[in-house]
């Protein structure tokens, strides 16, 4: 590992802290290392997709998965790189109910010079997955991302 878990967590918190959509969802990072992150989104009324059945919209789940998978990518790389999502595949396993927070675990499956493969799972209650996803990210390369961005996200080495 490049850093301590605390430093990875502080890094991903800073990363999602500057993303307006994540702020609008009040997304937060709970755990992070170079292989896995745990994110959460608290429930809010505007996240409802089906008012009659009181269910959370699947778009919120998609955004949480995309962000968590994208965040574990930046933790897994030797230094911060811009990595746009290439594709995202989601299976919706059970509805997400209103009133409960969403949790998302994202893991890195494989890092190659061009592509990073990840997978993620969303749940409200542990052991009862709401959705699972496979997301692939394109590495734009270290030369495309200024070194200052690595420092801005993960801080300065002692």
């Amino acid at each position, binding site marked *: 590992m490049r850093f301590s878990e605390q430093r990875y967590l502080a890094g991903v918190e800073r990363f999602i802290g*500057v*993303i*307006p*959509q*994540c*702020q*609008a969802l009040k997304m937060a990072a709970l755990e992070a290392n170079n292989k896995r992150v745990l994110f959460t989104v608290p429930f809010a*009324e*505007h*996240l*409802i*997709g*089906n*008012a*009659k*059945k009181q269910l959370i*919209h*699947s*778009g*919120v789940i*998609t*955004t*949480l*998965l*995309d*962000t968590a998978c*994208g965040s574990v990518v930046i933790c897994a790389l030797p230094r911060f790189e*811009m990595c*746009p*999502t*290439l*594709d*995202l*595949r*989601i*299976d*919706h396993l059970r*509805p997400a109910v209103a009133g409960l927070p969403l949790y998302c675990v994202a893991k890195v499956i494989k890092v190659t010079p061009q592509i990073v493969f990840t997978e993620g799972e969303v749940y409200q209650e542990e052991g009862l997955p709401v959705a699972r996803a496979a997301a692939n990210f394109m590495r734009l390369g270290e030369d495309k991302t200024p070194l200052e961005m690595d420092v801005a996200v993960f801080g300065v080495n002692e």
Partner: protein
Amino acid sequence: MNEAKTMVELVSKIQREGNWQELIEKIPYAKFIGISVLSMGDEIIFKMDPLPSNTGNPVLPALHGGVIAGFMETAATLNMMMRLDVVQVPKIIDLTVDYLRSGAMKDTYATCILNRQGRRVANVQVLAWQKNRETPIASARAHFLFDDDE
């Protein structure tokens, strides 16, 4: 039961009058990301406003990929409710999104093709674009389930 009746009435009223914005008002998340519907004859085009809160990359700046997917998913669901005599909200089974270009902070449009409508499952293809349809920012396909548990 009473509410279901209102929903049936609402959807059939909207199908007659073509004012789909009324249905969107019933979906808090659709309002949260700024979705509206333009219906021109048989053509249905969905629009998403470039709300500052939809930003995913503040440096470029660009739309959040998850918001683009959420928009396409909502478009696919509404498209089905508009095209068919569906008064229930179809359940999403799975969704695959290919991101083709970064989404600029401007109006985004989506159109849907109902590839197959079975008795229980539907397959929908969605294209999202900003400049024109020939340069889409994302393409998606999704499966939806209709079940009779309501």
